[in-house]
């Protein structure tokens, strides 16, 4: 009986997931949750208002255009035309998806298959690996490596070795997945770093899947550069964005893929055969919110910039708290995560029986004994690199003051138990 009801080969081994483990544990309200990346700050009020307005319009409660609600793709094309400095056709160059997660899935299903290799930079947002595997392809990992500087750690200190990267490319390499600003590290790839990647993509005729969900969250002294704007890259790049990260509405699950028609059309085929269309009222509300900010893109009050400023001070506060507790945070140049080396605390977990990496055990211990949650970094690594990163954990700091206050209390009292 069993064999006929067995799961397909494509999902074999893809059932476990760090989030399923850790979000359950942290759901306890007495835990200060700095784990999963979701804001506990409110989205801006005009964003919430636009959704109320949209839901009151009868026809907006029915199906809209499959590849993206017209007013939404129109404003996305305007915003990104401005950012990229090139014409973007709202109907052919854009696909609206269920979150950036859905864009990653559509892109990988559309363009990657058995026999392909896909380069993934470690640490990586954990879904890249199972998605590449589900498409039947082989993930090829390359780690960011710490430049031995001596000075206090910044995400900029973590870099790719150009020679090592070049060695990962071969005739089977179909794509490289880039994530900038980077989750979990917070690294913002510089123009020079992007050029190294671009040169290899062009040389090997490789595609680039550029996950830029944190594109607006870059801190002073840093600039987000779109790899698609480098010469020779537009025609081979799919750039992914997220409403959840742009407007602090992760629960709206809207994202988008932008690129040349000859790539986006294949994503559209996947989309029409997977979920067909995204929710209408959310898309309309998002479109209206984008119009408001598009009109003030020259103004510092634009939410794209004001959120970034707000998060920079939270970043600085988080870093200070961690340092005062004797921890070594890696200060991120972008994004809303911060990774921390916890080995300095010398917490001995060798008596914990589980065959899990140190950081998994550490986080579980920290949740149980300190009532503070984070995410273990080895969840974001391929099999060969887990050892290298198992002394790191990731904190999310897009949290309201009271949450950070509660974290402060825990960190200040860390050694008093």
């Amino acid at each position, binding site marked *: 009986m069993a064999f*006929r*009801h067995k*799961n*397909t*080969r494509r*999902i074999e081994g*893809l*059932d476990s997931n760090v*989030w399923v483990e850790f979000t359950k544990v942290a759901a306890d309200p007495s835990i200060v949750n700095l784990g999963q990346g*979701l*804001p506990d700050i*409110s989205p801006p009020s005009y964003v919430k208002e636009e*959704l*109320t307005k949209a*839901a*009151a319009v009868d026809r*907006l*409660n*029915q*199906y*809209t*255009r499959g590849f993206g609600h017209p007013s939404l793709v129109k404003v996305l094309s305007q915003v990104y035309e401005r950012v990229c400095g090139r014409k973007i056709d709202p109907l052919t160059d854009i696909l609206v998806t*269920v*979150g950036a*997660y859905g864009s990653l*899935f559509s892109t990988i*299903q*559309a*363009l*990657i*298959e058995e026999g392909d290799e896909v380069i993934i930079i470690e640490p990586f947002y954990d*879904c890249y690996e199972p998605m590449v595997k589900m*498409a039947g392809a082989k993930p090829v990992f390359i780690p960011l490596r710490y430049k031995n500087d001596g000075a206090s750690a910044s995400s900029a200190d973590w870099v790719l070795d150009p020679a090592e990267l070049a060695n990962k490319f071969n*005739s*089977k390499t*179909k794509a490289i997945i880039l994530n900038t600003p980077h989750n979990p590290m917070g690294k913002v790839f510089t123009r020079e770093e992007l050029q190294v990647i671009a040169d290899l993509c062009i040389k090997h*005729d490789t595609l680039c899947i550029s996950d830029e969900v944190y594109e607006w969250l870059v801190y002073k002294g840093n600039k987000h550069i779109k790899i698609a704007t480098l010469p020779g890259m537009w025609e081979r790049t799919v750039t992914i964005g997220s409403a*959840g990260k742009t407007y*602090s*509405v*992760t*629960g*709206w*699950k*809207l994202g988008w893929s932008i690129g040349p028609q*000859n790539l986006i059309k*294949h994503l559209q*085929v*996947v989309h*029409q*055969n*997977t*979920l*067909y*269309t*995204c*929710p*209408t*009222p*959310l898309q309309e509300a998002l479109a209206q919110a984008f119009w408001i900010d598009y009109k003030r893109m020259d103004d510092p009050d634009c939410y794209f910039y004001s959120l970034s400023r707000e998060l920079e001070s939270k970043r600085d506060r988080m870093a200070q708290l961690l340092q005062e507790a004797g921890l070594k945070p890696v200060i991120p140049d972008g994004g809303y995560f911060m990774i921390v080396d916890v080995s300095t605390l010398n917490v001995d977990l060798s008596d914990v029986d589980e065959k899990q990496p140190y950081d998994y055990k550490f986080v579980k211990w920290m949740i149980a004994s300190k009532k503070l949650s984070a995410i273990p970094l080895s969840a974001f690594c391929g099999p060969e690199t887990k050892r290298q990163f198992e002394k790191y954990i990731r904190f999310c700091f897009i949290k309201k003051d009271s949450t950070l206050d509660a974290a402060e209390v825990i960190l200040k009292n860390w050694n008093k138990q």
Partner: protein
Amino acid sequence: QAKMSRPVQARRLEGIDKNIWVDFVKLAATYSTVNLGQGFPDFPPPDFLKEAFMRALSGENHMLHQYTRAFGHPLLVKMLAQFFGKLLGRDLDPMTNVMVTVGAYQALFCCFQAFVDEGDEVIIIEPFFDCYEPMVKMAGGMPVFVPLRPKAPKDGKLMSSADWQLDPAELASKFSERTKVIVLNSPNNPLGKVFSRGELELIADLCVKHDILCISDEVYEWLVYDGKEHIRIASLRGMWDRTVIIGSAGKTFSATGWKVGWTVGPNRLLQHLRTVHQNSVYHCATVAQEAVAQGFQRELDLYGKPESYFIQLPKLLQQKRDWLVQSLDAVGMKPIVPEGTYFLVADISEFKSDVPDVTDSDEPYDSRFAKWMVKNKGLAAIPLSAFYCGAHKNNYDHFIRFCFAKEEATLKAANDILQKWRQEKTRP
């Protein structure tokens, strides 16, 4: 280099890029004055549901704008487990027997990806909701088609969707060693057929005999007319363990734009749907799930009572069905009276003279007819051939599908067009 000569897209997209909706939705938008084509209501969702959505937005809890539980918002899965548990006579665990999806469409996708491997055969009953075929192909499976065949109606009566039936021997012959899944859609889109207990038992027996899975698309479960009963195949003997039931808030609550659907079934099967879901979209939008949960709470409280939306909606739609049946019959378009759904298929043979046959065209006759009709009469409908596989598109090429989930004014306007058209035909 080999890579440069290969197409950039993956092979799994082969043969699934065409989609009739892209064409017909565009035509309707450009030419139609009365759109009875794509299946969605032109009336609003019920007030209690809209209010639930507004309540969710206006509440203190702004966390409804953030991620909820990936496999389904806790309140929604709780309500679905309670509601469907009651209907199925089973104790359902909201965490393991229910999964929420982005519309029933994504539920279907998860099922095919979870259970259909390269070389697996999937039985699809024609006519079928068009996405089944490309989804099976994208999963590397082989669709195997078996048609509903029309029996002549009793003398003087209009044909009913009940007159379209499976031939038991023909159905049995479609099962092979490679058959993994059968897709059932009852009530059926486009015909409106509501499979009877006898028909479901026939299918169930074969599922059990060949030990295969059943994907049961029941999105129109509440839209059944004339006192007919929607029977859930999962409640038949031997079926719960091998069936995934799919439902839709869009159809249940007339809110297709919310894209909230669900799957119900044994954990043994749902665990694999969860794996696909967590590796494809992961989370579904939160607010609409909260509102749908409250909608179900209300319906649970009012179950069986006259104010229940699940009683009022089919009552309202039955009237509209009867109205459209009358409209079509009066002008010579022969309606097949649907037992369920909000679709109605009509035989347009008497109008064929308006659209002459073209011998060298690849396009099925009904498709050309429907396109001519929207351009020249402003009335949008969908050709029945859209719901058949490529090889069978010309088998039933003189039928078109109308959606009657429309305001009275819309149906009246459709009637006006039909009447005028008829008059033009009978003028000397």
